[in-house]
């Protein structure tokens, strides 16, 4: 496809769906003979809190890895704000405005909580590395702005008093919040949360739900989350996709998903059906 026709194509897709943040168009991920994600279609409009659920090994995290550029889809396309991001490097995709957290927390262990969050503003810097030894004013301005943004985010996520502590010395729940703060520091439009409620008690998950709704408002975010805690999923998500063996078996509102027989079967197995009929 020539550059010109690609541009036309992009303009068309922009016109077709101006309010869509993220689109997956038959996104497929194959590893050798295994198809981890098979022809997945998703369309997430701006401002939505969406959920991606499914049994273990259904391919949910693979979807995240495709969106954030860690995997290049075997086929299909991914568009962000109407722009194709399929196969771009992760740091580029992050710059376009997609941030994520990890299922197994990945904080920078050698850095303090504050420094972890300050890394987030690094990709929007205008200064270059050689300006630091020259102490150019731009470097100082950016350092100050980065510090202020990070402190603001730490306060918003209730972490201001542990700003100077080593990130990995924080309690588990605080580490999860710190990951969210760090993701927000990249000034994303789309935030991907990979099992944010994992390992949380009911009260903590309730607070998390408030937090997710709150940051959606405050930062004008679109959020896609993977979660096993159904209370959280049903509580915050307006739209849910259900994956099983890499295929989308259902999508819709929480109520529709709750009553969907295919979903119940995927989660509870065939036996449930048999018992129900008895």
């Amino acid at each position, binding site marked *: 496809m020539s550059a010109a026709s690609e541009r036309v194509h992009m303009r068309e897709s922009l016109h077709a769906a101006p309010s869509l943040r993220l689109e997956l168009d038959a996104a497929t991920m194959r590893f050798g003979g295994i198809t981890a994600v098979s022809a997945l279609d998703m369309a997430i409009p701006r401002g939505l809190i969406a959920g991606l659920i499914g049994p273990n090994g259904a391919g949910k995290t693979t979807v995240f890895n495709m969106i*954030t550029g*860690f995997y290049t889809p075997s086929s299909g396309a991914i568009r962000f704000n109407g722009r194709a991001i399929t196969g771009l*490097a*992760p*740091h580029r995709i*992050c*710059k376009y405005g997609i*941030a*994520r957290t*990890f299922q197994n927390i*990945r*904080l*920078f*262990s*050698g*850095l303090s909580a504050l*420094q972890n969050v*300050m*890394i*987030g*503003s*690094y*990709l929007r*810097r205008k*200064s270059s*590395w050689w300006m*630091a*030894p020259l*102490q150019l004013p731009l*470097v100082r301005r*950016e*350092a100050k702005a*980065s510090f202020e943004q990070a402190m603001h985010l730490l306060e918003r996520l209730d972490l201001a008093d542990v700003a100077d502590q080593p990130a990995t010395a924080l309690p588990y729940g605080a580490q999860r919040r710190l990951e969210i703060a*760090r*993701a927000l520091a*990249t000034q994303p439009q789309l935030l991907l949360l990979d099992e944010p409620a994992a390992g949380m008690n009911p009260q903590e998950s309730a607070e998390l739900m408030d937090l997710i709704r709150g940051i959606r408002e405050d930062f004008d975010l679109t959020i896609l989350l993977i979660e096993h805690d159904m209370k959280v999923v049903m509580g915050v998500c307006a739209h849910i996709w259900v994956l099983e063996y890499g295929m989308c078996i259902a999508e819709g509102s929480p109520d529709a998903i709750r009553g969907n027989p295919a979903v119940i079967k995927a989660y509870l197995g065939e036996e449930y059906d048999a018992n129900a009929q008895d």
Partner: protein
Amino acid sequence: MTGARRDCLLNVLLIGLLFFLLHVAEQQLDAYSIRILSLVAVNAILAVSLNLIYGFTGMFSLGHAGFMAIGAYVCALLILSPAQKESMWILEEIQPWLAHLSAPQLFAGLFSDPDMARQLGFLCAVSLGGLAAALCGIVIALPVLRLGGDYLGIATLGFAEIIRVLIVNAASLTNGSLGIKGIPQYATLWWNYGWLLFTLYVIVTLLRSSTGAAFKAVRDDEIAARVMGVNTFYHRVLSFTIGAFFAGVGGALTAALISTIDPKMFNFMLTFNVLMIVVAGGLGSITGSVIGSVVITVMLELLRPVDSFAPGTRMVLFSLLLLGIILFRRKGLMGTREFSWHILFRPRRQQ
């Protein structure tokens, strides 16, 4: 902000004190002691540059001897006089363009003061030695830095050996295995400590900046760094190249300090010595690298008389000492901690 001003003042005072001590040392000490002091500075430059690569960016590199060799040869070739070159190249005729290239003589045309021309020529030669090493750093980094961990170590070790073999075989440039003798000993105490201060300034300000934070992020968790928008490959190449530059500078100063270089000198043991200083001082601590180079350089000299007892005793004792450090302070003398004025002043404030 008063804290920043206080630190700045204290830094200036500390540098003043250092210069005063250097002046006293130059007046009072014998040539042997002055040489050890110079070696401390050169080793500190090498250790800090390796620490940037390994301790702060997490790339296990064993190529330091290669970068030092490039720096040393470039510098030596630039400060030798044409007469020296003519008489020394026996194996092969020296390349004609190189035979008359001499940085001090180039500057002699510009400045009437011969000493000024020599010093400027030396400054140029050391800088170019560093730049040549940095250039090689980029060339080696592009294919090799896609590797990680032990693989990177092996690849960089191979690179250093390649450099050595190239030097042996490019006899018309390097005088091959005979090496270069009689290099003018321009690397005075002042030059060595001047370059050390410059190295420390550049690397410390860089590490304190957001770029330094990105280096550490790449070291701690490469995947998370990429998700945070850090171009990890670029930062690894950048850190590696800056480290290579200062390794080249260290090599150049070594050449002008000991006045004789040959390819055998730049073998793995040289890299190992620097690595030892970095690990003993603390991976990820600039302060540790500086303290480590003082301790290890001085210790190696102090233990010299032991060798009269039985040859090799020095290295045995030295190895035991290192074992002790690793057993009792696994993260080196400093761990990842750094010296700061803040730490000195904190206890007083609490009283």
